[in-house]
């Protein structure tokens, strides 16, 4: 079983690395979008799924990464990967004070605080003349998508690896303890602020790095696409569809939905927000735990009839108790 898993992972990696060299623009674009959303979904999942702090504003870091990359490329003419890396680091640095302040707020307060942060960042970007204001910035055109794809693949792979580590580490258990009951976690000796802020920093760096690649891919940045409500909503819906707070959920959700959502966005941009918003509502009622936990519960039931998952949304995937 374990060997089969490793073989599967190696095959997937080889395919993801070499197939893009031989496919045309349309499929490469779709593959890029899929990998991008896998990364974004993992970014959202760490702070919201594992630590239980629902953030509707991670797109702020995506936008900051995009703008940093754009401004640096125009100002310095450095290679875009260096600029995107700086953008990601900047997001991580910014996440320290923002996280220290925001994570003192709980539940809906934190969610609204982050929503407001993204809104404020967008307003600031559109009013700043140095960043091109509402009309944005143009980057040098004519670049190939392939390097952006590999960059995004590396970030998404890293996001998966970090989530795997969180899922198997004491740090992950600390986050989950905070999610279940923060006060009890604190009395058991978990340094809650430290754990929460660390999770928040990771959840900020991932979209920051992805935003840089996105800016280079679009060759044009403006407030609405950099701080895109659509991208934010889509990564949240994908995470919840796959199973929030699980290792595999964001991957499954993003892979299943990217093609559908891109087709919807291309063909029905007017109805897009309505359909995705409605989908999120229906999903919460019909399949609140997401696909991955639902399948895991079913498999567990088949092997041990008495076992069953009584998991809540945002709960860990079923498995042996790790206490």
């Amino acid at each position, binding site marked *: 079983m374990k060997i089969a898993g490793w073989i599967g992972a190696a095959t997937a990696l080889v395919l993801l690395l070499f197939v893009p060299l031989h496919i045309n623009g349309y499929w490469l674009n779709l593959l890029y979008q899929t990998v991008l959303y896998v990364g974004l979904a993992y970014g959202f999942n760490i702070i919201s799924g594992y630590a239980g702090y629902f953030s509707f504003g991670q797109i702020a870091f995506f936008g900051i990464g995009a703008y940093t990359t754009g401004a640096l490329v125009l100002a310095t003419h450095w290679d875009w990967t260096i600029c995107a890396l700086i953008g990601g680091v900047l997001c991580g640095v910014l996440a320290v004070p923002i996280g220290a302040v925001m994570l*003192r707020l709980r539940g*809906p307060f934190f969610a609204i605080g982050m929503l407001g942060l993204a809104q404020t960042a967008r307003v*600031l970007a559109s009013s700043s003349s140095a960043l091109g204001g509402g009309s944005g910035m143009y980057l040098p055109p004519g670049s190939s998508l392939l390097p952006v794809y590999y960059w995004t693949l590396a970030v998404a792979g890293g996001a998966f690896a970090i989530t795997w580590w969180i899922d198997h580490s004491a740090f992950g258990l600390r986050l989950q303890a905070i999610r279940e009951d923060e006060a009890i976690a604190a009395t058991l000796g978990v340094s809650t602020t430290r754990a929460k802020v660390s999770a928040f920093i990771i959840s900020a760096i991932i979209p920051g790095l992805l935003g840089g690649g996105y800016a280079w891919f679009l060759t044009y940045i403006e407030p609405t696409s950099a701080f895109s409500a659509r991208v934010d909503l889509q990564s949240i819906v994908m995470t919840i569809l796959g199973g929030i707070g699980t290792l595999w959920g964001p991957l499954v959700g993003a892979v299943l939905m990217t093609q559908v959502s891109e087709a919807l966005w291309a063909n029905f941009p*007017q109805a897009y927000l309505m359909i*995705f918003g409605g989908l999120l509502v229906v999903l919460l009622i019909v399949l609140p735990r997401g696909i991955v936990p639902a399948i895991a519960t079913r498999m567990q039931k088949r092997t041990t009839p008495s076992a069953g998952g009584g998991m809540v949304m945002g709960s860990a995937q079923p498995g042996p108790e790790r206490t």
Partner: protein
Amino acid sequence: MDTVVQLIVNGLLLGGVLALSALGFNIIFGVMRVVNLAHGDLVVIAALTCAMAYAHWHINPLLLLPFTALGGFVIGACIQRFLLRRLPAEIASGEASSLTLTFGLSYFLAGLGLWIFGGQIRSVPYLTGAIQLGAISIPQARLLAFVAAIVIAGLLGVFLRYTSIGRAIRATSMNLDGALACGVDADLVRTVSFGLGSAVAAAAGTLLSYVYTFNPQDGIPFTISAFAVIAIGGLGSYTGALLGALVLGFAQAFASYYAGSTLADAAPYVLFVLVMLVLPQGLLGRRAS
């Protein structure tokens, strides 16, 4: 000196309407502990409906108020009855799923608005004049919105104080178990509260249609300002909401004069974060359990 008086007048007039919008948000939060992220979208849809009706048939938005409020009530009651109530039982206790549901609803309503009204900015060019009092000028539209907001807030207060369903709503928001023990039909109370909160949001949107310009994707700022108002005033406190609205109204009026309108848009957010950090219970808040 005149400038300061003028800004105080502006802040007061704005505060009245902000207070009304926040009252709707507060009823829903008080009874159900649900933060309704679709609140601002209801405000915007009501305002756009009025702008549309004015553009086509020159109907005064004030005449439409009963209908938009009724529409808001029906939408709100349906949201509670058919969506929130269906959240799986073990999940309904958690804030995260109701929050995420209203987040999805917010985009649904924004998309619906985009589909119906299109993406352009709309407004109601009605009562554009101003009353001059010495050096102070009072825009008629804002004055009318302010007076109507105060009247509606007063009616709401009477309803909550003297009718039996109003008493049941207050009892439920004070103590759910106590209300259940006294035979309050919690399901009915929740549906009525969500309907009432949404009706007030729609009424606020109708009044704001005179004052601002709207586009279907403007909902989130109104949600944030309503949340800021009751967070400043203290969640669940009605007098606190009025006070919070005045604070926010003044802050926005002064910020737009001294720092420009862009920063004034960020004022509710900045104020909300500051108050949350310094006074987590708000100015007049009771302890949230």
